[in-house]
């Protein structure tokens, strides 16, 4: 019913109009602005009060530097550095100075970056924030200088650096001088990094050109705001230069995340908390630095182990021995050492471990005692060495095997190997993520290998284990079909191994222990994996992990498929859940290679020695953790309980060892095999 024409009006002749017209000047300038994404008019004040986020479409406005600092720094804690620094006009570019003066007046900024020191939720850090209003925050000599100085001062004061990048790139008006800023900033940050200090790079819309190709991409951790444009050559340049059609979402933060270049996309509302968390995780430097100095100090005669003892981190040797794990007393070691006991047995098993004599030979690899001491290692003679459980002892009779085996016999009869294989593959078995969630708090995932992609089959990040930062890595198969596809059934890609290695090296830099949850049918096999260098990626991990100067613990929680598992298991200790398996190849593969019949997998499983009890006997793993008849997410608490105790003990035992000692112990662990 249209009554409009029926009703008598106050004033006839006016038409109903839809509003889509521009605002009349009665609205004061600056009260409203238009969102570039949804085109809606929005209240300026509301936008400012909500982190410069459009209240309508929730897309981000670019944020002025000081507003950003206010939103991050604790009140009145920002101390600005190099305020008022201005540059020259090296190329005598026409009207450049005048342009800069006009911008200074308009924006209230001196230059395109504001640097200084602040506290973020109590955590002190150097903070640099770029401001796009100033010549698109392009990097000229002043930007380069301020960033380099900030990094240098951070080094002097041993503070982390957080840089919020936003830039069109190197500043054209300053020509080659701008280009050099890329190196200047990089070099300063490298020095800062070499001192073991943290640099967090936060990308905000947009980051391109010479800033992407320098400090923005050099963070230990690279975060980005959602939707930020990040790239080297801008999209228009690419299209115009080579006429390539660009894929959807090209060069957005999300695109980069998928392609492995950033650790995480963080919403603006939670940026402050995220930074505070990351700063806190990396703040525990006091003790570690002391440890570092102890071992790198010149001519230190004290053995690290003794140091550790006096430091209270390690219990008495005897106690220590009692705690189980790899550092047992000589005797215990002998008992658990499995097959490799004396020269004869050694010969029989075809293993690698020598008798005492051979050990002596092994010892030659290590330089003479003095050198060894110089190297910062601790173990001076065979006896001491033996006491820590590292030296393969001489032929002790294997008398207490049963007692030692008790641990895995708790759950009753020995299960059939093939049965265990199927249990290990059970879809309802808890995943690495479940273990991470149960054992750690505040896990924050870091993505990407900074090269090709982000492999979802391997999850890694930082977390707290009982208030102590750790790096956690887990191979994950996925539960639903969709998730399984995303994670290609837990078969790790080269990108996954490279991400793992990146995070392990990061852990090494920040002296965080690494805890790996291994669960994979094997490394992914396929064209893409080969093209990306699967073999090289695994090889690189073995190579680098062998020498990693931080404690590494690997826990096989399901399938330990071949090299795909080994690339996460070059650890100081390797533990297994009772029904996990670990083998050179899947039983199916084994059967089909040796007997040309993959159906004989069950038979193969029985002779492959892939079960936890067998592997423990062989000395391939140190510990077997009992599990219930059918381990599920619901009943995993008990297993997590023993893991928690175990990890606590592991970290306690290795805490005071130097990086070199840790690497050395790992070396010997595998050297004997």
């Amino acid at each position: 019913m249209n009554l409009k024409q029926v009703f008598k009006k106050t004033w006839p002749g006016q038409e109903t109009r839809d509003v889509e017209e521009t605002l009349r000047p009665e609205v004061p300038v600056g009260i409203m602005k238009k969102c570039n994404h949804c085109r809606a008019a929005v209240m300026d004040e509301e936008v400012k009060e909500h982190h410069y986020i459009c209240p309508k479409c929730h897309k981000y406005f670019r944020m002025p530097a000081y507003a950003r600092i206010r939103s991050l720094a604790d009140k009145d804690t920002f101390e600005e550095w190099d305020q008022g620094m201005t540059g020259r006009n090296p190329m005598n570019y026409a009207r450049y100075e005048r342009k800069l003066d006009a911008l200074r007046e308009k924006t209230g900024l001196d230059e395109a970056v504001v640097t200084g020191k602040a506290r973020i939720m109590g955590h002190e850090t150097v903070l640099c924030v770029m401001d796009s209003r100033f010549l698109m925050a392009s990097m000229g000599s002043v930007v380069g200088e301020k960033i380099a100085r900030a990094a240098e001062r951070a080094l002097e004061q041993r503070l982390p650096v957080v840089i919020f990048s936003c830039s069109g790139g190197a500043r054209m008006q300053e020509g080659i001088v701008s280009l050099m800023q890329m190196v200047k900033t990089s070099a300063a940050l490298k020095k800062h990094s070499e001192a073991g200090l943290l640099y967090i790079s936060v990308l905000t819309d947009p980051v391109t050109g010479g800033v992407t190709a320098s400090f923005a991409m050099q963070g230990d951790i690279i975060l980005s705001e959602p939707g930020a444009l990040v790239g080297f050559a801008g999209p228009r340049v690419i299209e115009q230069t080579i006429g390539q059609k660009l894929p959807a979402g090209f060069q957005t933060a999300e695109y980069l995340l998928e392609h492995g270049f950033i650790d995480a996309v963080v919403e603006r509302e939670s940026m402050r908390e995220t930074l505070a968390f990351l700063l806190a995780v990396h703040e525990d430097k006091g003790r570690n630095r002391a440890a570092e100095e102890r071992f790198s100090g010149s001519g230190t005669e004290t053995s690290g182990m003794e140091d550790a003892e006096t430091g209270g981190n390690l219990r008495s040797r005897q106690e220590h021995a009692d705690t189980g794990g790899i550092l047992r007393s000589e005797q215990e070691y002998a008992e658990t050492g499995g097959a490799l006991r004396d020269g004869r047995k050694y010969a029989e098993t075809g293993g690698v471990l020598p008798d005492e004599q051979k050990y002596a030979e092994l010892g030659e690899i290590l330089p003479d005692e003095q050198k060894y001491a110089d190297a910062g290692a601790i173990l001076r003679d065979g006896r001491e060495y033996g006491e820590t459980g590292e030296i393969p002892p001489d032929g002790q009779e294997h008398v207490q095997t049963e007692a030692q085996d008790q641990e895995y016999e708790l759950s009753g009869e020995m299960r059939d190997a093939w049965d265990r294989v199927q249990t290990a593959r059970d879809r309802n078995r808890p995943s690495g993520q479940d273990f991470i969630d149960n054992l750690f708090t505040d896990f924050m995932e870091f993505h990407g290998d900074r090269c090709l992609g982000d492999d979802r089959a391997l999850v890694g990040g930082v977390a707290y284990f009982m208030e102590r930062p750790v790096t956690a890595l887990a191979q994950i198969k996925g539960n639903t079909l969709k998730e399984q596809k995303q994670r290609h059934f837990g078969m790790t890609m080269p990108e996954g191994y490279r991400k793992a290695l990146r995070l392990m090296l990061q852990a090494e830099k920040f002296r965080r222990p690494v805890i790996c949850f291994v669960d994979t049918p094997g490394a992914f096999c396929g064209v893409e994996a080969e093209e990306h260098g699967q073999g090289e990626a695994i090889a690189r991990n073995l190579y680098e992990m062998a020498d990693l100067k931080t404690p590494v613990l690997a826990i096989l929680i399901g399938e330990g498929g071949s090299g795909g598992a080994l690339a996460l298991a070059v650890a100081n200790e390797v533990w297994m859940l009772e029904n996990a398996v670990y083998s050179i190849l899947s039983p199916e593969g084994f059967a089909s290679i040796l007997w040309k019949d993959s159906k004989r997998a069950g038979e193969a499983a029985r002779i492959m020695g892939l079960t936890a009890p067998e592997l423990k006997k062989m000395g391939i793993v140190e510990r077997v953790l009992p599990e219930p008849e059918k381990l599920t997410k619901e009943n995993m608490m008990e297993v997590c309980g023993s893991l928690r105790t175990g990890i606590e003990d592991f970290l306690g035992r290795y805490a005071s060892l130097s990086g070199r000692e840790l690497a050395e112990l790992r070396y010997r662990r595998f050297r004997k095999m």
Partner: protein
Amino acid sequence: MLKKVLIANRGEIAVRIIRALREMGIQSVAVYSTADAGALHVQLADQAVCIGEAPARDSYLNMENIISATMVTGADAIHPGFGFLSENHRFAELCEKCNIIFIGPPSGVIEKMGNKQKARETMKEAGIPVIPGSPEPLNDVEEARRQAQEIGYPVMIKAVLGGGGKGIRVAGTPEEFEAAFLAARAEAQASFGDGNMYLERFLEHPRHIEVQILADSQGHVIHLGERDCSIQRNHQKLIEESPCAAVDQELRENIGRMAVRAARAAGYVSAGTVEFLMMPDGTFYFMEMNTRIQVEHPVTEWVTGLDLIKAQIRIAMGQPLTVRQSDVKVRGHAIECRINAEDPERGFRPCPGTIRNLYLPGGCGVRVDTAAYSGSEIPPWYDSMIVKLIVHGEDRREAVARMRCALGEVVIEGVQTNADFLYEIINHPDFQAGRTDNTFIERVMEDIHESETGV
């Protein structure tokens, strides 16, 4: 003088305002969402502007578009009605900045009265009785006990971050206090992660009494008597009347004086309402101030003979009040029923849809404020109130009888309404006798439930 006013609202209140403007010779501009293209206010107004999609946040709460519509149509003022942006101080402030007359109080007053704590403090300072309570959040049981003694029993213990009835306990006596406080604190800690508590005197069986006030920009403030709005379901008023059966002339003058004092303390300008909780013995406490015209304003209009919307507009134009307090006489008795498109059989769930057929009563002493017509749509996006039925009688008895007759004539087809439920309430002996308080509906609903289940 105003030439053109934009109404930033919909439904019957928009219609009510358009009519007042038309009587005054002021042009009206309706705004509407895409869901309201056929709504009565759109057709009745001199001009209409679509301001966005159906969800209120995109249209009737979309400040930017409403301001744009004002600019585009060249309106000089905005009447916000009730609900939506009517008590949004930012919107009022925005109008002020844009030189648009906001027909309501200054933004600063809206802000101050919108903040419960600030409003309470303002009133306390002005010597207006407020519900006794703890000034600061409490955590310690001993300190709380001491304050509870000061406040007086029974005392209500409420979580600062409360909600959904969690973290609330009532202690009737000092003996019960510790257990109640600890239980409430534990519940608050578990539910909201915060164990900070407030104490407040627990009021049993209060009536919801509110006083209409008018204040002009010259500093004149008058009150127009009280309304009793105790008939509420889930804090939604259903039936309002004026005067209140339990208020005599002396109490009326007293509570009216307090309302005027409250308005002055707030620096109020325009039409407003001061809400009180009144105990059976006639003591009353300030609850809050509503800085807008209210749904139930017609009952006051009828007993005082004043047009509140026009008064609001005149005040906004800077004109002084034309009546003094001594001119205000409360004559007869008025009752309003809110007819909502909702289904009492299904937990009062809103029932949007199309009104197929509509017959509404009229005659002596009956007033209908509505935007509904045969064929009109009730969109699911907004409030479900569709008709306000108001009656006036020489006394309460006549008014109640008239309301019963009027409600009995209401025919609304196409959507479920609560008209029959209202009819039952009007016929309830307690309502007829004026024995009502805030828990009245709860009791009636229990009665209905029992009679239906045969308990």
